[in-house]
């Protein structure tokens, strides 16, 4: 099957007054239609930059190298306007903060109508907005259409936004920390929505988050990033039960656990690397218990654990 998104050796550098900063280095990644993928990593790991590269929405000072293919068409290297035309409509986005993602001056219904009108023409409008609100299980949808954003709670607004994003019938839905601004009980309901949308319309969904719990609950595949590199990529179940990269292992060990009466919080020693000091070596090596000379000399190639599970580590062969 042709991948929906295919990244080949994609790197993104930012030119700054202190010299270039490597935000994403040499990422190879394919996302298949209908997949729900989680991209996990700390702040500064490059996950948001990678997403923006897929969107074609990198800031002006960013330089992209490598190739990005979308549904069999190469889109990297083309002018931004053309990229937008080619696939702007094939990608929809859900942002982190539902409080700022709706225009405060218009009722919900009018904002949905605008988006549907632009995408499908005025003929598609009648009844569609109501249908969208029903599809995301909003209570009293007729009332919501006439209400203004400030009259809805954060969870309700995020439902509206997810409904709008899925109604574009985009092939790819990018969600950047979609549940971070919501409280825990609402998170679960929002995550269920993502699954419903995928099951209904076969949309591939990429959820970027630092919350491993979100990924475990909804994603079938997880991509772990560190220091601008993909370090591990595989089925969620496999990665969570048998992580192969020392960083993934440390990350999972650092989840708070309850042992008896005590809550144990295991931190990773050291700090996130300074992006200006990254290069062709493993960015995790300064914090890694298994670090060896090779780790500092060159970033490792891919090691296949199973068919879909790959890891980038010189110590991958070593049993955990």
């Amino acid at each position, binding site marked *: 099957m042709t991948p929906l998104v295919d990244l080949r050796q994609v790197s993104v550098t930012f030119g700054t007054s202190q010299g270039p900063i490597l935000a994403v280095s040499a990422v190879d990644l394919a996302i298949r239609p209908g997949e729900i993928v989680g991209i996990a990593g700390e702040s500064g790991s490059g996950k948001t930059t990678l997403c923006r590269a897929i969107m074609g929405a990198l800031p002006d000072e960013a330089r992209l190298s490598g190739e990005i293919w979308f549904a069999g068409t190469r889109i990297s290297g083309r002018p931004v306007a053309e990229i937008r035309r080619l696939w702007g409509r094939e990608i929809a986005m859900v942002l982190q903060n539902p409080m700022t993602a709706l225009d405060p001056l218009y009722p919900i219904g009018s904002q949905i109508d605008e988006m549907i009108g*632009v995408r499908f023409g005025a003929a598609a409008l009648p009844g569609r907005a109501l249908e969208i609100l029903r599809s995301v299980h909003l209570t009293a949808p007729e009332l919501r259409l006439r209400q203004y954003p400030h009259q809805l709670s954060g969870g309700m607004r995020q439902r509206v936004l997810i409904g709008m994003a899925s109604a574009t019938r985009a092939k790819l839905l990018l969600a950047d920390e979609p549940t971070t601004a919501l409280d825990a009980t609402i998170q679960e309901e929002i995550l269920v929505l993502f699954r419903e949308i995928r099951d209904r319309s076969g949309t591939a969904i990429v959820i970027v988050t630092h919350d491993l719990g979100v990924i475990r609950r909804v994603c079938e595949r997880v991509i772990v990033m560190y220091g601008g590199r993909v370090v591990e990529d595989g089925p969620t179940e496999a990665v969570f039960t048998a992580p192969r990269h020392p960083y993934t292992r440390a990350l999972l060990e650092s989840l708070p656990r309850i042992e008896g009466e005590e809550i144990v919080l295991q931190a990773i020693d050291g700090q996130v690397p300074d992006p200006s000091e990254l290069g062709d070596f493993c960015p995790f090596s300064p914090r890694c218990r298994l670090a060896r000379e090779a780790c500092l000399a060159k970033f490792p190639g891919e090691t296949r654990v199973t068919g879909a599970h790959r890891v980038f580590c010189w110590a991958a062969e070593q049993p955990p």
Partner: protein
Amino acid sequence: MNAGTVTPAAEQALPRRRRLGRWRPLQSPGLPLLATATCAVLVAAAVLGPWISPYAKDSVDLANAIAPPAWQPDGTAAHLLGTDQLGRDVLSRLIAGARISLAAAAAATLLGGSIGVAVGVVAGYIGGLADAVAMRISDAFLAVPFILLALAVVAVLGSGFGNIILVIVVTNWPRYARLVRSEVIGIKHRDFVTLARIAGVPPARIMLRHILPNTLNSVTVLGILDVGRAIILESSLSFLGVGIQPPDVSWGLMLADGRTLLGFAWWLTTLPGVVIVAAVMSFNTLGYWLKARLDPRAGA
């Protein structure tokens, strides 16, 4: 909770300096109410002018020239605010002047505001070269001294109602352009604009529907403040003789006409002066009050 909730007894107990420090006239309803009432009276006078004024603005009555206001000795109830050197009724002329002064101020503010807002929205949203060019042009306009510009325009185009508005517009549009541009730069990075752009909403539509309406709060405030400023500008021009020309009347023109008689007919200059001050202060108070009400950071 603010000063308004302090009980009178507690207020008395405060040392005098503390009380003055807490004096925030815009937070009590009195001053804004007074300003609104004054503006309403002036606007009503301007609109209803021909129907409510006791005399025609230029009905000459030399027998009754330089009559003092009614409450003065020698004053007559026939001319409440007295008459000028040609026996014209001052009250009627103030009412007629309200019409011209307020119309000029309102037209200049609306026109200058529209131009400034349009330039500001486009410059702020598109950014880059368009923004730089628009802002440098507005800098250039702001740098020209107003009176010099006014005299130049009058010298080339002649004086008159339309040219006064033109002069005021030339000096006030850059203020709107700069204000709106800075607002737009903040708004265009907000998430709802990003999402509209991703969804493929055309830029013109984003500017008109999402950017422009979100700037209108501050534009309204500046607009009301600017009415006061425009009244001053128009009065200054008319006072200098390059603004409104007889037989039309404006407050500034009345000031100029009465100037030579200031020694023994104080009401010919004082009354128009008082009206100008009242009008400008009322519009300014209204503007600042609105600003405090509309801006959540002002903590009104």
